[in-house]
């Protein structure tokens, strides 16, 4: 799919979306032994020690270390001889050149690719690598037509990450009809059913252990490393006992109690990044990634640092029936939007209805809401509303058609939006609504001033039902998720709080006397996605 200027002339002739008929050829990576050889050929220990300077954990499974991890997995410790032997067994064609793709733009990724290239060369495999451009999502995730054994993507291996909110997300991508690179089979379908079909932790864990053992040999993904999240703070900040945790999502971080040294004018201002550039991102795709998502809106439940629901937030109490299919919430009486309007169960109900029609909805939220009684009918347009949702004053009841093990996790992340301000929105153009220029939330902070692409100022909301925050103001400078200016701004004293996954940033921040860096374990696994369909397009 290399694009050249000739493509310019040709592409006018091709109608958009239609795939030209392609010849097929056998895919050498469909041989399990080849995938295992690659796993043996990569010396991840050394890469983590040197290139990552210890800022990563070598992975032996997509599932992170801890409760869900299976025992006794093969770690595929560096063994080039074994790799060569496996390749010989599989009749590896030395002239074949592996096409490896990635979508990160940083130098470290390119360095890693260079290292992989040289380590594979040591066992007699050639590879090239390229960054995907343009329609990245399609190039990365195209799924073959049902029943076809020819992959719909043109790469051999894709380097990427899976950032999970719940463990099921690691394996649900292998599901029938969704699987980009692993051919569907009954065994995987059955395992996927088992990990999703129960709320019983032990049964779930047993299913995950079986799944990990299967994948340990099959290597649909070659797990490379677990990436930690690095939270950084200046020495002006005191969390007053507030927790550290998975800062990419929402958890009980105790922002109300945070203290910060006053500046020369006596104002206690917290400077941070991930502020708006052109607009505020809605929080239904990445619930807690940006500063606005964290402080402007509350969720029904609060969660601990590992995102396990642990207490009330907008809902003062909640109840789950013994079969797990009925969940009800009782909302706080005195919770209000920043314009003074009360937060009601109707807001939540409207938000769920709307969210199901918003294209970019977080996968876990999407699973939960789709499991509600009547949700499928509503999505298909056969019903005006979801039968399983009842809203009455402060009381919200959800009746589920199928069990979703992650209902409470979802409500620890899902922020309801104000129906009275967004009720007119076309869900398909949700993000384009004027509301996102200056959103009215219900959380501990409200917007005081926004200068798009310069800064946004948040101040404590006086009538917040949980009390008033102690710091006077949060000032957020604009940045994307990957802020290239973290180090510069921190060095200049313009960053008091933030988080990053960039190893280069961490090393620079740790060297600064006025900054401290806290590593948090998060479910974030970087892997090589192995295109294992029997055939590939030529």
């Amino acid at each position: 799919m290399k694009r050249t200027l000739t493509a310019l002339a040709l592409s006018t002739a091709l109608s958009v979306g239609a795939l030209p008929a392609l010849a097929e050829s056998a895919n050498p990576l469909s041989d399990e032994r080849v995938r295992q050889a690659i796993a043996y050929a990569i010396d991840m220990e050394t890469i983590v020690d040197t290139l990552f300077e210890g800022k990563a954990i070598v992975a032996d499974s997509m599932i992170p270390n801890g409760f869900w991890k299976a025992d006794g997995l093969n770690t595929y410790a560096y063994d080039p001889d074994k790799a060569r032997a496996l390749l010989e067994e599989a009749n590896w064609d030395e002239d074949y050149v592996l096409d490896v793709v990635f979508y990160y733009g940083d130098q470290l990724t390119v360095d890693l690719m260079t290292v992989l290239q040289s380590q594979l060369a040591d066992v007699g495999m050639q590879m090239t690598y390229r960054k995907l451009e343009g329609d990245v999502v399609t190039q990365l995730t195209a799924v073959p037509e049902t029943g076809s054994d020819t992959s719909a993507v043109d790469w051999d291996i894709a380097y990427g990450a899976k950032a999970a909110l719940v463990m099921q997300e690691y394996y649900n991508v292998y599901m029938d009809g969704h699987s980009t690179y692993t051919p569907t089979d009954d065994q995987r379908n059955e395992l996927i059913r088992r990990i999703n079909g129960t709320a019983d932790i032990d049964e779930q864990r047993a299913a995950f252990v079986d799944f990990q053992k299967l994948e340990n040999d099959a290597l649909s993904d070659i797990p490379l490393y677990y990436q930690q999240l690095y939270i950084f703070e200046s020495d002006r900040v005191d969390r007053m006992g507030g927790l550290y945790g998975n800062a990419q999502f929402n958890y009980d971080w105790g922002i109300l109690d945070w203290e910060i040294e006053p500046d020369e004018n006596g104002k206690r201002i917290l400077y941070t990044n991930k502020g708006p550039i052109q607009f505020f991102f809605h929080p239904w795709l990445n619930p807690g990634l940006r500063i606005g998502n964290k402080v402007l809106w509350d969720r029904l439940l609060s969660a601990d640092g590992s995102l396990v629901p642990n207490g009330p937030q907008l809902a003062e109490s909640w109840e789950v029936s013994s079969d797990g299919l009925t969940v009800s919430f009782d909302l706080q009486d005195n919770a209000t939007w920043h314009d003074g309007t009360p937060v009601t169960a109707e807001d939540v109900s409207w938000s769920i209805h709307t969210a199901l029609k918003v294209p970019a909805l977080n996968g876990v939220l999407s699973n939960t809401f789709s499991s509600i009684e009547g949700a499928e009918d509503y999505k298909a347009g056969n019903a005006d509303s979801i039968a399983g949702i009842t809203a009455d004053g402060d009381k919200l009841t959800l009746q589920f058609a199928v069990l979703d093990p992650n209902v409470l996790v979802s409500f620890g992340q899902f922020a309801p939006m104000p129906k009275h301000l967004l009720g007119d929105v076309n869900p398909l153009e949700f993000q384009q609504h004027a509301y996102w220029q200056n959103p009215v939330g219900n959380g501990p902070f409200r917007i005081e001033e926004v200068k798009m692409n310069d800064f946004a100022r948040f101040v404590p909301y006086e009538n917040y039902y949980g009390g008033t925050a102690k710091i006077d103001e949060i000032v957020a400078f604009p940045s994307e998720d990957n802020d290239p200016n973290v180090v510069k701004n921190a060095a200049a004293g313009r960053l008091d709080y933030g988080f990053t996954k960039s190893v280069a940033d961490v090393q620079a921040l740790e060297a600064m006397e006025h900054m401290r860096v806290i590593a948090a374990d998060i479910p974030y696994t970087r892997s090589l996605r192995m295109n294992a369909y029997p055939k590939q397009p030529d």
Partner: protein
Amino acid sequence: MSTSAALNRRFDKLKALEESGKLKSRGSGRAFRKLLSNRLAVLGLVMFTIILLASVFAPLIAEHDPLRVDLRSRLLPPSAEHWFGTDMTGRDVFARVLYGGRISILVGLGSALLAAVVGVGIGCYTGYKGGWIDTVALRTSEIFMSFPQLILVLMLVAIVGQSLVNLILIFVVTGWGPMYRMARARMLSIREEEFVQALESFGVGSIRIAYKHMLPNALGPIMVNITLTTAMFILAEAGLSFLGLGVPLQIPTWGNILNAAQDLRILQNYWWIWLPVGLVISSFVLAVNFIGDGLRDSTDPTMQG
């Protein structure tokens, strides 16, 4: 850089005056300047040749493979073994700078030459022929030249994607305009000369007249333009790689190597990764500019006779 013909004429006049020495006049000053500019041109030529030869013969000079990764010897400071030290993955920086020069010089010089072939090729013929074909070419060049250059380059990168070949083609597309304008202007004045009319009366074909007889008379300014454009493209390659929109990162080019300086930690602690390549780019561009300047002095027709 474009459009205003009147303005250009005004400055050309000024430049011609300057270069013909009328402005320099009087005694030792002029002689000294000429000497200096020649000396600079020679210095430029020496620097240019050294860097060019070192790049071309990189395999003979560099002892290390520029792609050879050695994780156990990364970020080593310069030593007898690694003259410019090693980078983040333990590759030899000296070898990378030499090999990177091959690509960067190819991009710079190659694009400038191609742009000259296109621009001069069109300008020479249409300038001589005149008529509708001249108008079409002129309007087309105006369209390309009415974009700020970097804006056009970035837009084209977004459209055709990043690759070495694409980058060269994009540079040609954005760089042929000024070459064309210059060639056309020269042709318009040469057209009035007697030998052209003589050739026409002999019935010599217009293509032959344009390329064989008129073009050689315009080679001087074309050479000047090619050198200055080369310098511009080498800098543009570096700038694009900073934006992450240049030659794909896996290919070592000067821009891609220098790009490591974006990491503040490298900028502060590992000077050998960026300083040598920064100096090499700047010296090379400086050398090309010196040569261009010297060429301008020696080949300008107002200086002859």
